[in-house]
């Protein structure tokens, strides 16, 4: 145990602190994910518009989000915006802003993809059966869109959860940061703490994300045509 550095976890309140850090990660992810899902569905529907200007603007937004590393976005929002515009918000707020900004773009693209992937023939054979426009959306288009969308968006959620580990860079004390603090504090007494702590964090992430990915691939299999 000593050699693997797992013993530090049982010293004092270390384990509880680590769990507290995990909770910060989960909490911030969940808030960002919730905002991204709602705004992303709206953004995705906007992206299916045939209007040229709308198309170009949403394309630029999407590309910017994809090209910029999330870390750079975090720094811009937290250090840049606070200085430049004299705004004063916490690191947690900055991180929700960045993750929602990112998640909305990605979710929007997934929604756009899922909506446009429904072939024109599906609409037509529904109309041909006498279904009205709203019945066609309700019974045919939306169920098929959701089936395509849910597994993909679950994958996005796990991706967002993992990426939250970056936020310690702007001073949010989440699970990675707590881990580092524990390692620092026990440098003298247990020099091998790093392995134990990071292995535990790995396990935490695994426990948080694995059931979600499992659900995603299960749904994907169930609904694949």
């Amino acid at each position, binding site marked *: 145990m000593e050699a693997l550095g797992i013993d530090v976890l049982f010293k004092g309140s270390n384990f509880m602190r680590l769990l507290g850090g995990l909770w910060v990660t989960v909490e911030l992810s969940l808030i960002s994910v919730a905002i991204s899902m709602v705004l992303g569905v709206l953004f995705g529907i906007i992206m299916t518009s045939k209007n040229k200007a709308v198309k170009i603007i949403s394309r630029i937004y999407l590309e910017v989000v994809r090209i910029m590393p999330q870390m750079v976005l975090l720094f811009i929002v937290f250090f840049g915006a606070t200085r430049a515009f004299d705004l004063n918000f916490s690191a947690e707020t900055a991180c929700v802003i960045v993750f929602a900004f990112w998640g909305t773009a990605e979710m929007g693209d997934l929604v756009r993809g899922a909506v446009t992937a429904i072939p024109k*023939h599906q609409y037509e054979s529904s109309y*041909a*059966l006498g*279904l009205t426009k709203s019945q066609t959306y309700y*019974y*045919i288009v939306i169920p098929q869109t959701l089936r395509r969308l849910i597994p993909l968006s679950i994958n996005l959620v796990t991706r967002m959860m993992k990426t939250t580990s970056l936020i310690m860079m702007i001073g949010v004390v989440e699970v990675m940061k707590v881990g580092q603090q524990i390692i620092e504090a026990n440098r003298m007494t247990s020099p091998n703490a790093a392995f134990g702590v990071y292995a535990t964090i790995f396990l935490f992430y695994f426990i948080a994300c694995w059931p979600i990915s499992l659900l995603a691939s299960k749904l994907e299999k169930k609904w694949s045509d």
Partner: protein
Amino acid sequence: MAGQLLKETLLKIDHLRKAYGDTVVLKDISLTVHKGEVIVVIGPSGCGKSTLLRCINGLEPIQGGSITLQDKPIDGQSKDIAQIRQKLGMVFQNYELFPHKTVLQNIMLAPLKVQKRDKEEVRQMAEQWLERVGLLDKKDSYPRQLSGGQKQRVAIVRALCMEPEIMLFDEVTAALDPEMVREVLDVILALAKAGRTMVIVTHEMSFARAVADRVLFLDGGEIVEEALPEVFFDHPSTDRAKKFLSTFTYDAVRHHDVPQNY
């Protein structure tokens, strides 16, 4: 057909004109379909056969003339188009079943949600039809679990369960492997025997000949010939029809006494 004049007129197309932008696809089509009649529409690719059926179903706006079903105009924009479409059973080339619904759900959706019929009655009807086309054991399967020919038979049953006045078939066997064509055409032949009114677009000439009361030969967006099947296939009166029909036969290029050691 002696009593033809006395028969009820179901569908009347009068000087129909259809264009996409500047391209005129249907020039001046007039056609009357009586109850119980089977009309087969043939013609070269791109001549407007699918477009004609889509216009009849109100899926395409038209630029001139009129289409009426039992004296009610068909107009895709009008509010009661859904009402009229229930009387037109359309089956497309690419068996567009709904992939997220089982065979039975595919069939029952419109009778329940559009016609608000009794669930038990619709189920019985659906199962009877499935039995007749030999697919009762597939009623709980999803479309992805069916072969092309099976999907197409389900699509036919789905249209039939709406109890339409007219069935419209658009090359329903064109996307099928040859060995599955027969099972689908047999279903349509049985419908013809039972006296159903149908407008059928097909490339299967021997089937056309067997099933048709009247053959329409469409070329370049107009009706070039309209005749009884025996007349049309054996003695086509126009050069365009002769040329078209000749594309379905092949002249022998080798003689059997020549290549001995082949």
